[in-house]
């Protein structure tokens, strides 16, 4: 895999945790720590993973499977870290 490849990982939200303001805030703050671009896809929508308003706007309910993708520097580390975060949000 070349360093510029897009990395995609699926991560399911815990059943009781929707991607509302507080969890979304945790996600965005974590995503902002990586140099690569991060995109979340869910419910047929795509959001910039570093934009709190876009992430909230996904309207992802608890139990929704999110597709996390990143490309650029640190992409592998970013999606692994963020997928683990998504699965353990509370």
């Amino acid at each position, binding site marked *: 895999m070349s360093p510029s490849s897009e990395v995609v990982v699926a991560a399911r939200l815990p059943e009781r945790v929707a991607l509302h*303001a*507080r969890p*979304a*805030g945790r996600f*965005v*703050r974590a995503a*902002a*720590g990586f140099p690569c671009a991060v995109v979340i896809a869910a419910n047929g929508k795509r959001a910039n993973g570093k*934009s*709190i*308003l*876009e992430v909230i*706007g996904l309207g992802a309910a608890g139990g929704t499977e999110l597709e996390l993708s990143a490309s650029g520097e640190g992409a592998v580390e970013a999606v692994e870290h963020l997928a683990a975060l998504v699965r353990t949000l509370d």
Partner: protein
Amino acid sequence: MAVVTHDTQYVGLVLVSHSGEIVAGLAGLVGQVAGPDVPIATAGGMPDGSFGTDGGQVLDVLRSAANGAGAGAVVLMDLGSSVLAVRAALVELEPEELERIVVVDAPLVEGAVAAGVTASTGADLAEVADAAREAVHVSKL
């Protein structure tokens, strides 16, 4: 008026409203979403507790934010006299104070949440202002 100061380099927020309760509640919400590091100052309501925007209070808060230890501040207001009070206060500030303040045209709640989260990542003043402006365009539904 509540001014929370932190000895950090995070960009802060100044929230201006007709109501002290609105900005106090919003400051609490932003703190929950963005974490405790972002300094948030508020100005809302009149000295007698009625609704309105007190020009002196707004000027004090803006001046304090411009001279604080942080990396400047993004100012968001609700509407009407809040906007007029901020405009009037800007006229009173020194050029070097104005360099550390960005007044943003954005919805108050959404802009504050977006700006607060971005500020919490250590973003600079221009980046935090851009995040607040994004609130004009991002759809809720």
